[in-house]
């Protein structure tokens, strides 16, 4: 047995878990394909998510082309337009953002940053990826099925989602979509349980919860939330599948469709909306919290300064996570639910603004009196702050029930959620890729290409979505194949739509440069060394880069300090790795 010292700062004996040969893979297949190494699974998740994300990006171009030049591209008919918006939304939210943050970054970073050899259940972790891949394939199958994919909008509101007036409603589209979601949730649950148990049980010695990097706190909180929220979507999907296939009436009241009385009766369309948003609102934070965590670390590392108010940052995340389960009906202010719910949900929604604002303050206060290196990850972090603050503030319009009434279902909503859960988290994803690519590959991404990529993406995305709010303020409704003659579609609005489409195409093109950079730098990038950013966290302290299976070689690291000992007064360097002993107890984590 190992002698566990009474205080975390006491000298700790060498780690007791030595690397053992037994569990390493021995064939190409088990090393690169059916791998149980969290890092390989992370890359599989990321590449799959980015690939399907590119499909969603192309879909967004097609719908923007229709909005700017209605009728010019004849292959984009109304059916296809609704199929494009539906698939774009669902892919981006679930199959790209959720999968990339949790399956991608979660898998790569949790074991490495916590000083673990791997996830605690590597086999379930592997299954998680393969079921996710199956979910993606079932989703994509919609494009090839008779009738095409569903065009019900990403919210899939019944009754229209399963009726013939909606593309895919009475064909294969909706069945494949719901099946894919069910598979995704099964796969995610396997991965998610892994992340939670690894964080709780797999940490290196000395790595107390309050010494974990905020990246891990973000991913951990988001995973717990996802495990609680996804079941609501799961049951809603199963119930709708029953309504569609077996003729049950969970969500189907008496309906006369195109003059024909349907056999359904007694169900509640609003029940689906409650289930959907009970998942859907936490989902926003399932994407946002990992982004919050990662961006905190990017800012801290590249400003060479401890994150300001670490404990407040942790608690703010936990509070946001908890509150996000009691705000869901702010998506339903005009759904026809009892309007008195508006008082409760507007209040809870605006309360969330307080911990969220604290996070923003702490990011910018981390910059204050820092030593800001304007690296690519730092640029993306700054881009995140601007877009997140913008998108978060417009949330105060939509959360405030009476203000939501004129704005709901308009382009204002589209602009808001793209800014806050599209652009802002994607800024963080790019920043994170530029930041950790050297650890994953051993090489740096090209700096010049990175800068061009950042400026075009950041400014372009801002120019797409900032003016779009004003179309919504004018009254332009969302999900319109064409607005045509209307008081809310003056010629000037049409010009603005053309401008937005041009920007969307430009931003899309810039991503080609990014993909080229990622491929080119794999061979030609500058050699990164083990710790190019001079960061404190454990993933940068691995004996070899890229880290091999088992991560830390012979002995696991032992942690002596928090993750933010940058520019500690009196220290010889401007960073002290977490696994460096602290004989003089100089670190001032939890200072006050």
């Amino acid at each position, binding site marked *: 047995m190992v002698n566990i010292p009474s205080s975390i700062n006491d000298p700790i004996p060498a780690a007791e878990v030595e690397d053992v040969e037994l569990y390493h893979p021995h064939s190409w297949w088990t090393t690169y394909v059916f791998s149980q190494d969290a890092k390989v699974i992370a890359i599989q998740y990321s590449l799959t998510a980015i690939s399907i994300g590119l499909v969603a990006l192309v879909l967004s171009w097609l719908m923007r082309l229709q909005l700017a030049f209605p009728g010019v591209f004849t292959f984009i008919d109304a059916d296809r337009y609704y199929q494009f918006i539906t698939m774009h939304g669902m892919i981006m939210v679930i199959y790209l953002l959720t999968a990339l943050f949790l399956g991608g970054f979660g898998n790569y970073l949790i074991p490495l940053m916590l000083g673990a050899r791997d996830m605690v259940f590597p086999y379930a972790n592997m299954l998680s990826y393969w079921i996710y891949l199956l979910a993606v394939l079932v989703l994509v199958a919609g494009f090839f099925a008779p009738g095409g994919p569903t065009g019900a909008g990403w919210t899939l509101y019944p009754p*229209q989602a399963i009726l013939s007036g909606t593309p895919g409603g009475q064909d294969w589209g909706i069945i494949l979509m719901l099946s894919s979601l069910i598979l995704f949730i099964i796969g995610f649950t396997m991965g998610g349980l892994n992340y939670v148990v690894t964080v709780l049980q797999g940490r290196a010695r000395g790595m107390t919860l309050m010494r974990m990097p905020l990246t891990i706190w973000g991913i951990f909180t988001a995973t717990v939330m996802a495990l609680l929220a996804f079941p609501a979507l799961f049951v809603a999907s199963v119930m709708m599948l029953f309504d569609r296939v077996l003729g049950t009436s969970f969500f189907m009241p008496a309906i006369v469709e195109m003059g024909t009385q349907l056999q359904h009766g007694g169900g509640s369309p609003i029940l689906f909306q409650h289930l959907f948003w009970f998942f859907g609102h936490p989902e926003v934070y399932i994407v946002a919290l990992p982004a919050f965590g990662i961006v905190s670390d990017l800012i801290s590392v590249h400003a060479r300064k401890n994150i*300001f108010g670490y404990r*407040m940052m942790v608690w703010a995340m936990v509070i946001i996570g908890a509150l996000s389960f009691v705000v869901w009906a702010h998506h339903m202010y005009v759904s026809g639910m009892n309007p008195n719910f508006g008082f409760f949900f507007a209040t809870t929604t605006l309360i969330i603004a307080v911990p969220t*604002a604290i996070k923003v*303050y*702490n990011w910018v206060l981390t910059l204050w009196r820092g030593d800001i290196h304007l690296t690519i990850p730092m640029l993306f972090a700054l881009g995140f702050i601007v877009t997140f603050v913008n998108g978060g503030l417009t949330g105060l319009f939509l959360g405030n029930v009476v203000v939501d009434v004129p704005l709901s279902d308009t382009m204002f909503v589209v602009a808001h959620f793209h800014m806050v859960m599209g652009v802002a988290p994607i800024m963080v994803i790019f920043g994170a890729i530029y930041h950790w690519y050297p650890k994953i590959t051993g090489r740096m991404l090209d700096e010049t290409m990175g800068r061009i990529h950042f400026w075009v993406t950041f400014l372009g995305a801002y120019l797409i979505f900032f*003016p779009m709010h004003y179309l919504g303020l004018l*009254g332009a409704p969302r999900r319109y194949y064409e607005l045509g003659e209307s008081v809310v579609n003056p010629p000037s609005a049409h010009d603005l739509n053309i401008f937005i489409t041009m920007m969307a195409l430009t931003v899309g093109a810039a991503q080609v440069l990014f993909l080229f950079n990622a491929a080119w730098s794999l061979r030609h990038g500058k050699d990164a060394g083990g710790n190019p950013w001079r960061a404190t966290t454990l993933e940068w302290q691995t004996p070899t880069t890229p880290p091999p299976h088992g991560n830390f070689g012979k002995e696991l690291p032992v942690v002596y300090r928090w993750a933010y000992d940058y520019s500690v007064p009196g220290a010889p360097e401007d960073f002290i790795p977490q696994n460096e002993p602290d004989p003089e107890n100089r670190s001032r984590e939890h200072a006050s």
Partner: protein
Amino acid sequence: MAVVFILAFVAVASVLFHLLSPWWWTPIASNWQYIDNTIIITFWITGFVFVAVVLFVAYCVLRFRHKPGNRAHYEPENRKLEFWLATVTTIGVVAMLAPGLFVWNHFVNVPSDATEVEVVGQQWLWSFRLPGANGKLGTSETRDITAENPLGVNKNDSAGLDDIIIQGGELHLPIGKPVKMVLRSIDVLHDFYVPEFRAKMDMVPGMVTYFWITPTRTGTFEVLCAELCGVGHPQMRGTVVVDNEADYQTWLQQQQTFTQMMAASGEPQTAQ
């Protein structure tokens, strides 16, 4: 330096865009001026925060960007500062929420003298029903819908026999009188949306929803559907005309009642 300039430019240009933008809400035609006012308050508060944060970031980059020999300040926490920032934020949030809830209270409480007007949505058409001489709408039921009785008005409810039915035509409303818009759908979700009225609400099959307005300006307004209802969603348009009282009465006299409609289609009456 370019970073500092561009960040500051984003803040300033966003404000200028807001002030100079030609895209602004349509001239209001209902009593919900309160909603517009709450939006204005929210714009002021959020606009101030946005500009302050972005300019602060720009200043930090200008002042604290890396130069050889620089070293960051080491200060893990500052309880006092965090407390004050949280307090000021809370005050800002209350300043937006309080008027919002106040107006919402007004929104959910329909005045007792409001006249009921029913709007029925179906793919992809608006129909309307107004109470007849008795001032009351009769009951209705989706199951009762037939080709001759497209809104499913209950033939056995005498209150409904004099109801005025408008299928696919214009709805007229008198100026200055509160109306409770009673909303029904017979197939999928729809949303009765007149941009100039500000208020809107989903129409849900299987239940009855509502909102209320007082029209404050005569004119002809476009009705749009604001909840995705299938491929015909963008074509689901209608017209609302706000009349002065005399014009309204003239229009009202020309409309057919439920009884007349049934008689025209040869369906026998069965009212008790």
